[in-house]
Structures are given as structure tokens and as C-alpha cells.
């Protein structure tokens, strides 16, 4: 949890000696709270206070960073159990597992496919976040070679999966500079893995499938050895274990401030799944319920597109509707004879309509009314998309200057507005479009004669 200035002040020497270049300890504390200066600037801070401050300021779930800066993923540091309480901040990284015992050619093909994949929704580009390279070959040389090959072909973050410290070291020698996640430490190998994590400054996954007691024992040993950037790999093999365990972990962090398990979680929904769909179901559950990194066995667009969409949905800030600015948008290169479609400024609505207009082949004007980010029917029901507002938008946005005709097309779902709008916009022809944007093309073909 971020500390307030007052909370920080309590730990300071309170001598107002000004060695920090601030007039008082309190002024300094305020700046520390705003993160404009680091608390270590105060030379007289006692080591005990420093440690206490750090402990108190540590988020309940540590923020862990993986991968090279350009494409890094940050996971953890969530502050609520339910998105309606505030919002979820760090969307889970969706990664693809690469088996190092497969032919290099097919590995490279997958890597190329995954790293070039990107799909747009409501103006946001969504993409997979990296690769988990699994040392199924059990051979250190092969593992290192595959890791180097993947890192050479893609900038995306990596997870290195091996419990053999020698194989891990071999791979880290090649790609350690890319800040991969080391997966991982278990009861047998943790000392060596922790040394590697420290040496290469990488985060370390802690594998503990037999319950939280032994997992927390293990993380305590590892943090005592000086490695702090941890990721947990508890048992999440099936839907029930996953939702129960991950809920427990998140509650432990928030309700009990339980530090030994205050880390993000990595999951492998494909591990025990018998089909792509089963994997999709478990991954979907884990997007909603508390995973930080999700490693999928299958990469198919028909699976990734819905999962990325779900991630976008769940990690949308519930306090605000995603919206676009009210304006007249040219779609294609519209002329003064082109049609005018009217819609609302909810992003989803705007992008649905704009996308359909684009692919319809009709250049058009899209007049976006300010409905405070609500969809067509929601805005209509809330009284934020009525004849008055539409008429006002037509006038204030000077639509008449852009076109040589006097026609506007309303969304089919608000056909009822026609009469009133004819009164508000005298002389205008109010046309009623289809209810769904996907039918705009065929509608225009039929109804719009240039």
C-alpha cells in the first residue's frame, strides 16, 4: 500500500535539520509520498525506520516485471478483490508454451506467428505477451539453443521452464539479459535457482503444488536469501483448485497482509486439459480470478481473440465508460454528397459503426453525439440520446457545412426518435438505419443513391 505523507513522517527523525534540502521533515515526507524523492535522501534515517518504512510501503501483492523494457510485462500490485471496488490494474500476461524438444523450424514458425499477432478492439491493439520455453528435452544445450533462438526472433518476454539449475544457467547465459522469468524454484533446487535469479537479476517462480503451507515456507527461505521478485506457481490444474487457491492467495494478501504469499501467480491452464476448449475455459476463469501470467499450450487466433477480449473487459475501469470525443468523423474520404450516420460516443458503439462503414465501401460522415459514453439503447433509456441532443449536435458541429444534402441516418434501435427529430430539424430527412451495424453496408447499397 502506498503510504501517506503523515505515515512516512512518523518514521523520520523529526529534527528538521534540512540536510535533505527540504525545510522540514514533514515537507520531505510529503514529497516522498508523491514519489518525487526517495526516502534514502534523508541521511539520518535509522536502519530500523528504513526497514519498517519499506515493509509498510510494500504493496500487498508485489509488482513483478519480466522481459526487455520495450515489451515488458508488469504483473501484481493489485489493490482489490473485486473489480467494482476500484479496478484491476495489471492485466494477466497471456503467453504461449514452446516445447524445446520440437523441431526448431516449427518452433520458429510458432514464434513468428505469435509475435506478429495483434488484433484491434475499440481502438485498442491486443496481443499475446510472450513465450514460456519448456525444457522437455531435459538437455541443457538444447534448452539454451531454443531460448536463444526464440529471443533472437522475438522481443517478447520469456519464461524459462526447467527445474534443472544447470539447464537454467545454460539458458540464462544466452538470454539472461532479457530479464526472463525463471521457472522455477522448488523444495530441492531453490538455493541454486535463487542464486541464478540474483546473478541475472531476474524474477523467480516458486513452484509449490502441495498447498500453501509449503509454498509459503519456500518463499520465505528464498526471500531470506535475498531474492524478492517472486511469482507463485501453486496448484491450479483444474477449475476448482484454481478458483479456490487463487482466491485464498488474494485474500491472504489483502485481508491478512500475509507477505510470504504476496506475489503474482503464474498458471498453465493447458497442463491438465484434454482439449483446446477446456484450456480456454480454465484460462478464462483465471483472467477473471486472479492470475498474473497465463501460459497457454495452444496458439490459435480463434482462442486468443476471445481471451484477449475478456482480458480487456475485465481490466476496464468500471468507474468510467470508455468513450470517444463527440465530433463528425470522416470515414473513408467522404464528399458533400456522402451519407451521414448518427451514433453515440461509447467507444464500443463508435468503433462498431466506424468499422462497418469502413468495410461497406461507402465513404461516410459519422456524427458522434455526446451521450456520456453510453451505448445507443442505454443512452436512449437514460435520456442522453434524444431528438434534442441529436439536433444540438447537428447544429453545434456544423454538419450542414460539410454536406450538400439534408439527410441523416439514425441507428435502427432508436427509430422512435424520428418524429421528434423531424420537428427539431425542420427540412431534414430523417432516415432509419438497420438495428445492427453489420447490416449498414447492405442498407446503404439499397437506400443511398449518390
Amino acid at each position, binding site marked *: 500500500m502506498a503510504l501517506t505523507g503523515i505515515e512516512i513522517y512518523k518514521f523520520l527523525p523529526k529534527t528538521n535539520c534540512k540536510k535533505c534540502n527540504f525545510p522540514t521533515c514533514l515537507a520531505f515526507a510529503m514529497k516522498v509520498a508523491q514519489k518525487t524523492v526517495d526516502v534514502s535522501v534523508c541521511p539520518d534515517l535509522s536502519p530500523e525506520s528504513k526497514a519498517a518504512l519499506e515493509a509498510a510501503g510494500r504493496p500487498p501483492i508485489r509488482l513483478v516485471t519480466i522481459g526487455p523494457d520495450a515489451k515488458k510485462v508488469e504483473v501484481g500490485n493489485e489493490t482489490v478483490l473485486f473489480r467494482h471496488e476500484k479496478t484491476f490494474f495489471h492485466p494477466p500476461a497471456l503467453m504461449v508454451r514452446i516445447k524445446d524438444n520440437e523441431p526448431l523450424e516449427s518452433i520458429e514458425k510458432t514464434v513468428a506467428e505469435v509475435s506478429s499477432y495483434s488484433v484491434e*478492439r475499440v481502438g485498442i491493439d491486443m496481443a499475446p505477451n510472450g513465450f514460456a520455453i519448456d525444457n522437455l528435452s531435459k538437455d541443457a544445450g538444447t534448452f539454451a539453443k531454443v531460448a536463444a533462438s526464440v529471443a533472437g526472433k522475438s522481443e517478447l518476454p520469456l519464461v524459462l521452464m526447467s527445474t534443472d539449475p544447470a539447464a537454467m544457467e545454460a539458458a540464462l547465459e544466452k538470454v539472461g539479459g532479457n530479464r526472463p522469468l525463471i521457472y522455477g524454484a522448488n523444495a530441492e533446487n531453490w538455493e541454486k535457482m535463487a542464486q541464478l535469479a540474483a546473478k541475472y537479476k531476474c524474477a523467480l517462480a516458486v513452484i509449490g503444488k502441495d498447498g*500453501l503451507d509449503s509454498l509459503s515456507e519456500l518463499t520465505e527461505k528464498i526471500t531470506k536469501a535475498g531474492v524478492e521478485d517472486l511469482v507463485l506457481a501453486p496448484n491450479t490444474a483444474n477449475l476448482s483448485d484454481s478458483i479456490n487457491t487463487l482466491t485464498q492467495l488474494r485474500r491472504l494478501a489483502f485481508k491478512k497482509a500475509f507477505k510470504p504469499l504476496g506475489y503474482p501467480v503464474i498458471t498453465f491452464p493447458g497442463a491438465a486439459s484434454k482439449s483446446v476448449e477446456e484450456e480456454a475455459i480454465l484460462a478464462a476463469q483465471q483472467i477473471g480470478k486472479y492470475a498474473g501470467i497465463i501460459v497457454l499450450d495452444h496458439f490459435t487466433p480463434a482462442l486468443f481473440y476471445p481471451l484477449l477480449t475478456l482480458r480487456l473487459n475485465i481490466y476496464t475501469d468500471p468507474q468510467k465508460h470508455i468513450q470517444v470525443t463527440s465530433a463528425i468523423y470522416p470515414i473513408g474520404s467522404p464528399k458533400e454528397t456522402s451519407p451521414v450516420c448518427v451514433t453515440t460516443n461509447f467507444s464500443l458503439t463508435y468503433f462498431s459503426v466506424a468499422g462497418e462503414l469502413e468495410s461497406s465501401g461507402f465513404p461516410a460522415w459519422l456524427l458522434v453525439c455526446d451521450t456520456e459514453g453510453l451505448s445507443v439503447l442505454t443512452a436512449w433509456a437514460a435520456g442522453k440520446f434524444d431528438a434534442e441532443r441529436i439536433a444540438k449536435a447537428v447544429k453545434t458541429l456544423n454538419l450542414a457545412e460539410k454536406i450538400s444534402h439534408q439527410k441523416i441516418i439514425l441507428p435502427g434501435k432508436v427509430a422512435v426518435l424520428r418524429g421528434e427529430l423531424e420537428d427539431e430539424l425542420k427540412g431534414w430527412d430523417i432516415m432509419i438505419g438497420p438495428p445492427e451495424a453489420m447490416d449498414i453496408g447492405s442498407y446503404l447499397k439499397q437506400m443511398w443513391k449518390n
Partner: protein
Amino acid sequence: MAPVELPVEKWTGKIKEVKLGGNGRKSMVIGGETTLPFLKFEGVLPNKPVIAVEVQDAPPKDWPQALVSAYGDALKDPGEWAKKALSFGAEIIYLRLKSAHPEEGNTGAAEAKKAVAKVLEAVDVPVIVIGPEVPEKDNEVLVAASEVGKGQRLALGNCVEKNHRTIAATCIADGHVAIAKTPIEINLAKQLNILLCDVGLAADSIIMDPTTGSLGYGLEYTYSVMERLRIAGLMGDGMPSMPMLCDVGEESWRQKESRVTTGVPETWGDPAERAINWEIITAISLLNSGANIITLRHPKTIEFLKNSIAQLTQAG
């Protein structure tokens, strides 16, 4: 080292148990949980969530090929359709009297009775009957449906503020359950339940439909309002503690991602798989946020979700 002390919430409330079916028909109870969805370490989930499969009173005009080919000729008759749904794994039939809609045929009480009778005849699982979602027409056809299914504890919907008196009276008279639908708003949901109880409908004869937004089309709103309703119920507020139904089938198959096979980005992937994943992912997300009944359409989705529910609810 001391064992990790599990963070268990002490909920004082409990989700109401609602019984469907009976009187010759198979019966089932939904609801009854004392914790958030599937948290075995904390409470009990005496009755697992169930899958309702949609049947319509006339062949659907707007279903995509993937669905039409899965059901085939059965779509021509609600009774055959219901049997087919049962063979896919339906635990409840969700009969939508769509042709009663003024723009879909405007059929009336007589036709409604026939369709309901056919379904009741064809299958022995509990049945939900949904009107065309035009309150006046709903009254007409649901009252008719109610008479046909008297005593068999159907669920009738959608009951909204506008028609709640009629639906409640019918449910009371014939021993049915009301599906109380409100637009993704916790206070409206609670308010409608209060209204229904005020006119004499028992609290254990109400199922809430919080309105479903599908994946990519408002899912997050539904997801959060359901979590809030469930938490409010578990915290001891009796009025939002009814079980919930989500109309996943209709909402996910309405979307472009499930319908359009050409002229979309290649990154959307194989259309057939994508459509099924759209339904699957909408369904599991809403189960995780508290749904007790989900409606589904595609046989593959039904199969996968049935397995998922079994996994989530098995003992141990």
C-alpha cells in the same frame, strides 16, 4: 512454521433455494449457496449451477448456420427441438415464445398454449417459458403458458416492473416461479424483488435475470453487477439473495464474432471455433460471477460447460 491461516469470510446470508419442476416432472433445486461461486474452502454449494437450453416456438429466422445444422429438422417443432436439446445435455428447457412478438408473427394465447404443451409433453425436465419481451404480449402468452403447466412449477419471464403484478399473480395462482429481469443495476434488481414480494409472491419463487452482456459487448458490466448482487445477498440482505439466470445463448450468438464468417480480420480466427469460444467464455465468466442457470445453444458448449460445472462442484 505455522500453517497458513486461510482467510475465510463469515457470511451471514445465504442464497435462496428455488425449486423447479415436480408433480410428475423431474424436479430440481437451485441456489442455496453460503459462499461466493465455487469457494469450497469457505461454504457449501448444495445445488450445482444448471444448463438451460433454448427452444423457440417457431424455426428461428436469424440463427447462424453453425446452430441450424446442429439442430437440423428438430427446429421445426418445439417438442422435437426440446428432445434434441435434452440429448445435448439440457437440464432445463428455456422456451422462448418468440413468434408472439408483434414483429415476429404476433401469435397469441392459443399458439402459446400449444407450444408449451408440446414441450411439456416431449421432455420431463423443468421448463422456463419466456415471452417476446413486450410486456403486454408477455402477459397474454405467459398467462396462457401458466395454465397449461399448472402445478409443474415452471419459471415464467420476463417479469419486469411494468408487468410484475400480472406475472406474480399468475405464478401465485398456478404455483410457478417468476424470472425477474432488470437492466444491470443492483438497486433495480432489489426493487423488483421487493415489489414481487409485496404483491404476495414468495421470495423462494423468484429467479433474477440481471441482464446479460456477452463477451465484448458489456460482459464486464454484468459480471460486476452479479458479483455485487451475490455479495449483498451473502451479507444478509434478503432481497438480492435470489438465484440468478444469465441468457448466454441469445447474447453471445447475437454478436458479429459469432455470426460473420467472411470479411472480418484474419486475426479473429476460424469462425466456427470462434463462435463456440465466444459462448463458452461468456458462460464460464458468468458462472464465476454467480449464475445459477445459464442458457446455452451450441451442443459443444453444452458439453464443455457441463464438464466444467462437474469439475467445479465435485466433492473434495
